């Protein structure tokens, strides 16, 4: 093996290991931060600052009974949790962590991310359908409708960035932000993308497919043990993914003052967005289902289209001059 191959392998293993370590760590982070914003302490008993809660939680999930309901469609039931993790992990292929630290700098990077996130909808649909349970089915139908409709303007909102940088490749997009981060000219695009991202990861306040207070646990009502754990990890990986993509597309990726290495800048920005995800969960109530769809199609979609048209016009004018 030559040096390039070894380097490539190192990047792949590093990204995978980093993600799989950070994702369960978010259990701790989320619970501590939620507690912080609700005037509580959160888990602080096991280990320093309660960090060992991660280990305890994981062990608990491992030793719980991994039950497949007899009325379920066994094959699809087992398949569904895998899909979410696989698709999200695949999306990380195109995320540029630092110059050169990217698994594959595809020239269709953003489209690849979109493709994987649209495939991620299957885990919810199939999981809910295979459970053969009314609440799960309701949850999965809501999830499917939500994810499909929010995907539409998730893609459209990213097109503004593509127009400005002239490329689908994430690496080129980050490079194009040397002068100014895209969050300034594309503020509307950033807001819509982030809202769509929350809906895409079905986090609160858009956790309509799970909606504990209405649907027990929605599409994963019937899941227990490690299968549930995989859904859980998938959700956290989704948060990390949306945060990293937002940073790469709108907040200049690894760019920043040079007293810190680029990777550290990227991680810091991503961490900020993860915290913002948790702040959203701590403060906002869940909208009703029809409100969510109405908001998506009647407000956000026209906004993104407007943003796209205006951006295209400005780019065209600049070219003409």
């Amino acid at each position, binding site marked *: 093996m030559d040096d390039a191959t070894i380097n490539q392998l190192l990047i792949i293993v590093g990204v995978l290991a980093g993600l799989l370590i950070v994702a369960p760590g978010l259990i701790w982070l989320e619970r501590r931060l939620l507690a912080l914003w609700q005037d509580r302490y959160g888990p602080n008993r096991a280990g320093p600052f309660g960090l060992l809660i991660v280990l305890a939680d994981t062990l608990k999930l491992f030793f719980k009974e991994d039950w497949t309901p007899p009325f379920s469609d066994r094959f699809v039931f087992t398949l569904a949790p895998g899909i979410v993790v*696989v698709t999200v992990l695949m999306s990380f292929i195109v995320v540029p962590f630092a110059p050169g630290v990217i698994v594959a700098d595809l020239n269709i990077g953003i489209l690849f991310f979109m493709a994987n996130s649209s495939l991620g909808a299957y885990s919810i649909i199939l999981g809910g359908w295979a459970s053969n349970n009314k609440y799960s089915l309701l949850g999965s139908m809501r999830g499917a409708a939500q994810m499909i409709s929010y995907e539409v303007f998730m893609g459209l909102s990213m097109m503004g960035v593509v127009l400005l940088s002239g490329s689908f490749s994430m690496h080129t997009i980050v490079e194009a932000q040397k002068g100014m981060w895209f969050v300034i000219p594309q503020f509307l695009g950033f807001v819509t993308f982030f809202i769509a991202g929350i809906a895409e990861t079905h986090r609160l306040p858009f956790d309509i497919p799970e909606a504990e207070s209405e649907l027990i646990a929605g599409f994963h009502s019937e899941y227990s043990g490690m299968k549930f754990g995989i859904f859980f990890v998938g959700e956290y990986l989704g948060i990390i993914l949306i945060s990293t993509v937002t940073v790469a597309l709108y907040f200049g990726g690894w760019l920043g003052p040079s007293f810190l290495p680029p990777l550290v800048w990227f991680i810091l920005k991503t961490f900020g967005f993860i915290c913002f995800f948790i702040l959203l969960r701590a403060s906002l109530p869940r909208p009703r289902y029809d409100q969510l769809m109405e908001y998506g199609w009647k407000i956000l979609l026209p906004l993104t289209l407007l943003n796209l048209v205006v951006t295209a016009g400005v780019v065209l004018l600049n070219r003409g001059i």
Partner: protein
Amino acid sequence: MLIIFYIASFVAVIATILVITQHNLVHALLYLVVSFLAVAMVFYVLGAPFIAALEVIIYAGAIIVLLIFVIMMLNLRQESVAQEKQWLNLQIIVGPVVLAIILGAELLYMLSFEPTSGLEGNVIGAKAVGLSLYGPYVIGVELSGILLMAGIVGAYHLGRQKKKVTHRFLETQEE
């Protein structure tokens, strides 16, 4: 590259056959998704990464989701599976998982170690697709746009709710 192309095509063919032979409708649709993924892979190998991505986003990601949606609403029970079995008696031996794993491994290998290049060496990027769509084929784009507009208007018409007068005095007057 050639071997990857053949593996992907093989997976596509097998998955499509399995779509037809499956008893359970949702399982059949799953194989259809795998088939679409395989076709996307073929596109990628042939040097059209843009079309490959669109294939996954639109066909596998959106259209099949809607199909599954409809089938979930149909509330199919064990009887329908049994009926299908009567029609066609074949054991499920290879799951779509195996096929998807083959595809995934290929994709990972290609993404990680091979530069993006077509079988014949000419890659058609997103820019080329856009240029040809808005250059020689602009009439086709406009026509499909009009068609979609008609669809949107029709959907709006079907989905529109008549405004109901809810006031109890006015309601009696209406009748």
